Structure formats: structure tokens, C-alpha cells
């Protein structure tokens, strides 16, 4: 378990060094996107429209933050990750089209995303679900917000972060997926549990 501190924009070379179970902290720019923002971003791409921010080398964060406005300035009050599996249907295209290097969320992602990460050079960093203040304290500045018409949880929030983490590398760019490994073990353990409970296998 190695610890890495990465600065955005992150290169493919830096990403390829990382292995599952490593711990990563990110400094630079991360952008939130949930279901609706993923959907709209891919629609924009299809229509040849540019996104409000170039995501190349950046991290996309599955997060709907609690935000407050102090004067003209937005503040991220609480900003933990949301469940990433909902974005599984979009993420391979998202990585391919927008060249993000890190996807941050909780709960892990599936085979399609794992394959895209191996192909294009990206990782999935699991941020502890619910650790919203830990995340908010690493957000030094809200640089901007786009697509607020989607509602504050679904908008694109552009955060300037310092040592944002710990992110557990749960999918690396070599086809390894920690969540899927755990699931395999859980399936094996299931038989032992049934036996212990005296249930038919």
C-alpha cells in the first residue's frame, strides 16, 4: 500500500504507476458530476458542443454537495461522495471523451468502467462514504459552478482542492477492481454463512 500525492492535470504515466489498495491525495482541480451532469455532458459531446470546463487530466467527483452562499461566494459545506454505480452507464464514454484521469466516488464501479480505465488510463479512487467534512475541509475554493439549472446536488461544481483524500485506489488502470475482488470473496463466504446458520446451500 503506497501513498501518492498527485497534482492536476494528471498524466497517463502517473496513473499507470498506481495499483489497487494504494492511497492517493489530489491537489488541483476536481469537478463534481452526478447522473444528470453525466447525461448532459455526453449529450453535449454528441452534439459537438464544448463542456463549460475542459476535464482533461482532472478528477471527476461523484458528489452532490451541501453548499452555502456567502455574499457572491459559494462555500462547500459538506461534500462526501455519492454511490458511483449509478454512473456506470455513462462512465466509459465519459472517460473516453473527456480524458479524465481519476473518478472519485463510493461503492465502486463495474466491468465496463474497469475496462475503459485500463484502455484509456484512469483510476477509481474510493473516498469514504459520508466523510463529507473531511472532503469539504480539503476544498480550498469553489472556483465555479455550471449547470445550476439541474439543482445544486446535480450541478457541475468546480473545486480547487489540496490533498483531497484519502482515496483508496479501488480500480487501477491494469484491469484490477478491488470491489469485484471483495465481491468474489463474499460469494465464497456466503456458503460458510449458510452452513453456520443451518440453511440449505
Amino acid at each position: 500500500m503506497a501513498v501518492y500525492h498527485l497534482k492536476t492535470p494528471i498524466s497517463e504515466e502517473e496513473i499507470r504507476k498506481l495499483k489497487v489498495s494504494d492511497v492517493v491525495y489530489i491537489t488541483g482541480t476536481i469537478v463534481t458530476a452526478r447522473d444528470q451532469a453525466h447525461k448532459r455532458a455526453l449529450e453535449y459531446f454528441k452534439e459537438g458542443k464544448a463542456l463549460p470546463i475542459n476535464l482533461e487530466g482532472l478528477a471527476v467527483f461523484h458528489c452532490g454537495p451541501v453548499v452555502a452562499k456567502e455574499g457572491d461566494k459559494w462555500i462547500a459545506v459538506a461534500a462526501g461522495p455519492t454511490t458511483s454505480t449509478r454512473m456506470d452507464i455513462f462512465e466509459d464514454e465519459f472517460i473516453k471523451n473527456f480524458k479524465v484521469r481519476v473518478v472519485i466516488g463510493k461503492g465502486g464501479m463495474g466491468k465496463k468502467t474497469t475496462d475503459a480505465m485500463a484502455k484509456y488510463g484512469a483510476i477509481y479512487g474510493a473516498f469514504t462514504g459520508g466523510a463529507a467534512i473531511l472532503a469539504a475541509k480539503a476544498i480550498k475554493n469553489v472556483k465555479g459552478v455550471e449547470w445550476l439549472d439541474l439543482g445544486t446536488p446535480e450541478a457541475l461544481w468546480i473545486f480547487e482542492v489540496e490533498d483531497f483524500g484519502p482515496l483508496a485506489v479501488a480500480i487501477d488502470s491494469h484491469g484490477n477492481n478491488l470491489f469485484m475482488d471483495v465481491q468474489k470473496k463474499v460469494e465464497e463466504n456466503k456458503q460458510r454463512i449458510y452452513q453456520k446458520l443451518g440453511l440449505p446451500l
Partner: protein
Amino acid sequence: METKVVEEVAFNLLKQAVIYLPEDVKKALKKAYAEETSETGKTQLKAILDNIELAEKYKAPVCQDTGTIIFYAKAGAQAKNLDKVEQALINATRRATKEIPLRPNSVDPFTQKNSGDNTGRYIPFIHWEIVQGDALELTVMTKGGGSENVCVTGMLVPGEGINGLKKFVVDAVIKAGAQPCPPNILGVAVGGGADIAMKLAKKALLIPLDQHNPNPEIAKLEEEILEAVNMTGIGPMGLGGKTTVLGVHVDYAFRHPASFPAAVAFNCWAARRASARINSDGSVEYLTHKNVR
């Protein structure tokens, strides 16, 4: 009972719930951190404990998903102004959304429009119970979406009995995996009907972790299920480890001879709840967060 007092108390309960986790939950998480053997699992529990401390220090919501707001109201039959309680709870919710702040989490399922203030048709939801006396006891649960998405109801086969229930719970936990932000708390209920089982299961999430079922047979079942689900190896945040569930609470209702309804309600580690009693003279006792103002 002054509605202003009800509104103020509901606002305070929301604030207590979203910022300060109950002592029993914190204690269970600390114990889990001490006992977890998986390295990755331990980093997750460490982040959780650090986050709880930061939330208290900065008086900010412990999780950005400040949940769907559900009130449980135990109304004394002699309490006055009960017809105005609903509006007071709605007002408190609106104020809490703006002032704490809470994330606006109330969306019209047809237009997909977010009301922006955590209110909407049937939201905040209020469970009413009429009890003796003239006091009003209010409990708020702010229920996270990640753990809500894996709650399940099942109509099991009566012939399989409690064994069927055990299997149902184990399978639900395995299927949920990393999604409900483990370590979780489980509310399990059997009997009544599909809706009744889930209502009881969800309500069981309000029981403190250090409190066990007064029926020794059911307490044993809770312990057995807890041990079983922690053998899955799902671990904190689904990244592997031995802490998957912090506690299990089982409740039941009598069932129809042909039915065996069962429900499993999941709560995330950020198991937010707060209670208070408002007496008829307007005095207020905070029941879960005695040392927090």
C-alpha cells in the same frame, strides 16, 4: 403547546441529528476501528472517525446527504394544538434547510423538479402515534439515500419460518455490498404485511445500538444475524474487512397464516436521529443529545 415551541424544537432536533451522531453509534464505530484487521478497512474507519470529529468541531452536517426527513410523533391524547404540528414541522424543515444548511433532497418524481427546501407532497413524512398524557415526543430521522436504495421487502414462504428470514437478511446484505456505506445498522422486521414489515424495520433503526430486544429469543436472533453478516467480508465501504454491520434490531407483528412478510431497512454509519419531549407547560427535554446546544 405553542406551535412556535414545536417549530423551535424540531429545528433543534434537525440540527442535532445532522451534526452530532448519537453516542452509541460513535462508540460502536470506535470499537470497530480498534478491532478491524483489514488495512484498507481501517483507513475507512479512521476517515469516518476523523470526519465525525470535524463535523462536531465545525458544526457542519456529518454527511452531505442530509437525507429524507422523517418525523416520528408520539402525541399525548390530551396534548393541545396537535392539528398545527404538521405545519410547524414543515416550517422547521424549511428553516433548517436554509440555516444549517441541509441539502435540498425533495424532488417531484414526475417533473424531476427539486422543491429546494426539503418539503413536498408527504415530505417531511410524519408517523403519528397516540399515547397517554399531554406531552408530545418528537423524533427525527434524516435518512440517507444510499442506504435507502438497498432496503428490501420480501414475501417469504411461511413454511421456511425464521430460517427463511435469516437467509433473506444475509442475501440482502450481500446484494447491497458497498452501496449503503457500511458499516451499517440493520432494522429487520417480520409479519404484519408488506408495508407494516418495512415500517417496523425502519422504526427499529431508531433503537440505540447498546439496547437489545427484551425478548431473549429475539435478542439471540439479532446476535446471530449480526455475526453472520459480519462473516461476509464486505467490510467498511465494501473495500473488505470484518466490520460490515454495527448492530441488528429485530421487530415483528403477527402475520396472516398464508403470508410471511419480511423487511430489511439499512442505515448507513451516519445513523442520524434525535428526540425530544415537549411538555404541556412548554418545557422541553432533549432525549438523545443532552449535552449539545
